[in-house]
């Protein structure tokens, strides 16, 4: 208990130190506020953004597309992972292309999507879907390959059909890896949306970053980055909670 307390206390102390340094150091070192704004500058700017720039709308838009892209991308990734996991043949046939697509920098597709779909929400959604898709796919596929053969044999000996084996053995066996893939994907989803918004469009926190950057308003950029981090963090925490619920059957040390 004391140990746990100590961790929290130290962690909070670090946060306070960083905030104090942020407030004091730029002025002390004579760094102009358009390079590094202080904490109080940023808070003032945050209030201004809230009243003048319709900040709430931007936050909600970014959050919405993060979640939407995450859900669609991970659904597609999981479905594709399970399908390929069921067929050795297709897995072998498609794996070089999957690897190639996985290596290709997904954010670089953003301008292309804008050319195809125009300045609307479609490009950022697609970038997010694409970036989320792979970690989920790869994790599921990897887990499908390593399902315990003895469990599958047991199920077969109990006369389960192929579909029965899939739902009762393979899916539950792969859930820990699926959850790990989703956690990675959740952190990437924010990147996808941000890049989409940076490159085109006039809504979202990513847009505020490029807008603020254009005006040499560093405080606006700072605020947008922090808010993006908060969105990603919240998504991650929600997933962690879900994971804890879903994987309750694992001994605590294992996850």
């Amino acid at each position, binding site marked *: 208990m004391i140990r746990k307390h100590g961790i929290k206390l130290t962690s909070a102390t670090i946060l306070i130190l960083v905030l104090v340094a942020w407030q004091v150091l730029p002025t002390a070192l004579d760094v102009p506020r358009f390079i590094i704004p202080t904490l109080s500058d940023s808070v003032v700017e945050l209030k201004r953004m809230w009243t003048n720039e319709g900040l709430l709308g931007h936050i909600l838009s970014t959050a919405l597309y993060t979640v939407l892209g995450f859900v669609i991308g991970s659904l597609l990734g999981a479905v594709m992972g399970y399908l390929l996991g069921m067929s050795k043949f297709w897995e072998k046939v498609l794996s070089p292309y999957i690897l190639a697509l996985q290596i290709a920098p997904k954010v670089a597709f953003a301008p292309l999507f804008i050319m195809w779909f125009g300045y609307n929400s479609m490009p950022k959604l697609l970038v997010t879907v694409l970036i989320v898709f792979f970690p989920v796919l790869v994790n599921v596929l990897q887990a499908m390959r390593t399902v315990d053969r003895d469990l599958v044999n047991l199920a077969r*000996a109990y006369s389960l059909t192929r579909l029965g084996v899939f739902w009762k053995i393979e899916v539950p066996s792969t859930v820990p890896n699926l959850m790990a893939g989703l956690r990675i994907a959740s952190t990437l989803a924010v990147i996808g949306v941000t890049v989409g918004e940076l490159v085109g469009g006039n809504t979202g926190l990513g847009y505020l970053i490029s807008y603020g950057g254009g005006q040499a308003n560093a405080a606006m950029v700072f605020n947008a980055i922090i808010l993006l981090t908060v969105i990603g963090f919240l998504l991650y925490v929600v997933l962690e909670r879900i994971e804890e619920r879903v994987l309750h059957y694992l001994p605590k040390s294992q996850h």
Partner: protein
Amino acid sequence: MALEFSEVSKSFPTQGEGSLLAVDNVSFRVEEGEFVSVVGPSGCGKSTILSMTAGLYQPTSGEVRVSNELVTGPNAHVGFMLQKDLLLPWRSIIANIEFGLEARGVGREERRARAMKELEHCQLSGFEDHYPYQLSGGMRQRAALARTLAINPEIILLDEPFSALDAQTKLLLQNSFAKTIKEAGKTTLLITHDLSEAVLMSDRILVLSERPGQVIAEIKVDLPHRDQPIKRRVLPEVGEYAAQLFKHLKLEEKAA
């Protein structure tokens, strides 16, 4: 007659060309209610025999019959258990015991009732809502036995179910298995490398040679207390039977 192997051979394709003969012309019978052990050196095809009985592989030649029916695939007559308990970690104990019944069109309530009954037989009452990780190795094996018994198989196949346990747990579990199996009147085939275990638990022991596995001896264990290995253990004849097995497996020559 519950199980019959007639002239069964099994070879597996190896990497590249050629194949590996695992079991060579094996014939034996197991009568109803009998407890037969199969012993032999490692890699002698013991587990292959078990997998063929369970219908997971087909013999390359020869026939395997269970309850006079030719085994052509996984079937309802056989329940099997391995060294690993293979409990599904995401299911509670009771749901694990029900697992085998789900593919057999048994209704939800009947499944639960049958599972609870086996849970009691295997001395696990009160643990139905626990998850496998919360149980000790011995209890997990008992849960696996309950799952095997729940489908009411005619034959139980045990593939070294005690080999991963510590010595004391092993003794207690052998005793509890022997008792449960005797009470249920199940025909049992036990694959083991533990010679004394074979003597303590069986009516009859089949000795296999090194690969390719062939039956080189068949020993009838004429001792009381098949349902209580702990009692059988202290009988002086146990040592003689073990010595016979030693001789057939040529363990002394190998040690020299």
